[in-house]
């Protein structure tokens, strides 16, 4: 673990340099909320933001993605992918961890997702620690924040007008070496402050919600539990929870006839939708709302851990805050954790 520091002005230079060399995605103000966007001007970047309304998953798993075109005479042509040398700057640790969760699911052999890999492989992730986590957040539960998560190349933490830079991967080390002049060794006083800050942030989060996440595996046996029936009464079956979730990766495909060729697109789908498991025969293994809600929680907290050794939730709190009917995954954690 190497700790460096960078001043506010030098960080601006760093951003400008990254902008000139690579495609830069960073939080900006747009439409009344914060959003990750491809920067056209490095001055638009906002570093004292809470978190983005929509998760950065969109940049790697777009809501609508062209997979290939099929010409009756020529055959299949694959579309070339854009932004392979991107930088995701200022992402929160929870969202950065979500990318590492997606990596362990979508890049696992033998069913590797090439479209995701193309966008993800070269992307550098530089995260920004949460000093003031929001009321909805519970990243401490899955150890994905608030200071450091998993899946980042560099972690920036604002401490008293400078940023502590923690190098997390060899690739992160390479970036630091590229811009060697901008970074300095962190002084002892700053490091002391940094340690206090980490302790306070972690304590603050632990005060809110503290559970044993290993017990969540037991959710597997809880199908038909009253808790899910009660929440199902409330649920209106929109897809906000899955569409804003940084981890949800289910997709569907659709073919279109476009002039002389077919195009196949894929895009987000959601397991809370009544048609998700409905088959052509009319059979529906998850026919009730309670089953679907149970499935969503169980998949995230029990089945993904069993299959991929990571959790399908990173505690960003988007579904908790954005659900129009207030269905709260934290209640599941409290009840079964």
């Amino acid at each position: 673990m190497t700790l460096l520091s960078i001043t506010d002005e030098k960080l601006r230079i760093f951003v400008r340099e990254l902008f000139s060399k690579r495609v830069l995605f960073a939080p900006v103000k747009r439409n009344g909320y914060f959003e990750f966007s491809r920067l056209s001007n490095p001055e638009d970047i906002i570093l004292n933001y809470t978190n983005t309304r929509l998760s950065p998953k969109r940049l790697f798993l777009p809501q609508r993605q062209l997979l290939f075109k099929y010409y009756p005479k020529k055959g299949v042509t694959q579309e070339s992918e854009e932004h392979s040398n991107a930088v995701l700057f200022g992402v929160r640790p929870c969202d950065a961890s979500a990318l590492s969760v997606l990596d362990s699911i979508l890049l696992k052999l033998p069913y590797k997702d090439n479209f995701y890999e193309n966008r993800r492989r070269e992307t550098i992730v530089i995260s920004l620690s949460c000093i003031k986590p929001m009321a909805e957040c519970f990243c401490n539960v899955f150890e994905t924040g608030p200071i450091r998560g998993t899946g980042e190349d560099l972690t920036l933490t604002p401490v008293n007008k400078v940023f502590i830079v923690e190098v997390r991967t060899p690739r992160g080390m390479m970036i630091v070496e590229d811009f060697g002049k901008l970074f300095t060794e962190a002084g002892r006083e700053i490091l002391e402050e940094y340690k206090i800050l980490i302790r306070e942030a972690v304590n603050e989060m632990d005060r809110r919600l503290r559970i044993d996440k290993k017990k969540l595996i037991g959710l597997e046996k809880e199908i038909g539990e009253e808790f899910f029936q009660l929440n199902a009464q409330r649920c209106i079956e929109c897809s906000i929870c899955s569409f804003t979730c940084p981890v949800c990766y289910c997709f569907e495909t659709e073919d279109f006839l476009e002039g002389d060729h077919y195009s196949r697109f894929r895009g987000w789908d959601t397991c809370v939708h009544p048609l998700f498991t409905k088959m052509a025969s009319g059979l529906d293994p998850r026919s009730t709302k309670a089953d679907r809600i149970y499935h969503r929680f169980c998949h995230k907290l029990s089945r993904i851990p069993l299959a991929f050794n990571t959790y399908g939730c990173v505690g960003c709190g988007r579904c908790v805050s954005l659900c129009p009917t207030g269905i709260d995954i934290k209640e599941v954690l409290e009840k079964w954790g």
Partner: protein
Amino acid sequence: MSSSEKELRRLARRLLETEVVQLVIGYEESEVGVRPCFIHKPQEAERLVWNPECRLNLARYLRDLKDSRVGVVMKGCDGRALVELIKENQVDRRNVFIIAVECNGVYKPLKYGSLRQERQISEYCKRCEVRLSPIRDYVIRSDGFAFNNASDNDEKPLNWLSIFRKCLRCMACIRSCPFCYCTECSIEGFKPALVHKLVDTMELFTFHLTRALHIVGRCVECGACESSCPVEIPLTRLYRELNQWFKENYNYIPGLSLEQAPPPLVFKERDRT
């Protein structure tokens, strides 16, 4: 706890104890806000709350509860929606006990990653003139919070195409709307697929205009769609503009009385086509 809240809880408890209703639908406090709740037992009535965070239109749930006697907490707009649903034969008036709560407007939701930090009354509430449900079995006058009547009608034209570009197609607008009850939604249907799921902006435009045309003359501007929308599309503004057109041509404001028949359901020779 405000006195209206106390009265609400007492009433809900009585209704359940005397078995006038089997279920009371109202609002309860959750960790991050207020959400709909379903009360089956008298002792659970203590969970009910009433404040300007009570946003979602509860008339939406009554469609699925046709066979049970339900007590329901209704704002002015919720009651108007219920009037229309009764006229469309979606809800049986005899099965519903309407607890009409005087509404002073609800707050815009403070959602995840919002730039705004302070509470504001919703735009659609500033224009609302019906604060009490037109049909009711019990009236609770409210106190505690003040209505900001300063209607700053911001009428600058909106670029709908760029607004719809934000749309995630999460369908929360459809799902939260009391009037979207088609068993096979034209927007979600496969045969024919009028609007494809994985589409570009023009199809999003079709999607929203289809929906707008389906609910014009029925929409009561309760704002359930707008407050549910994760990307803050000002849908009520669109529906209000269409409703104004409807009022001028058919002289009908939805949800004000049970007697007046809705123009889309009746045929008149002099109707404009």
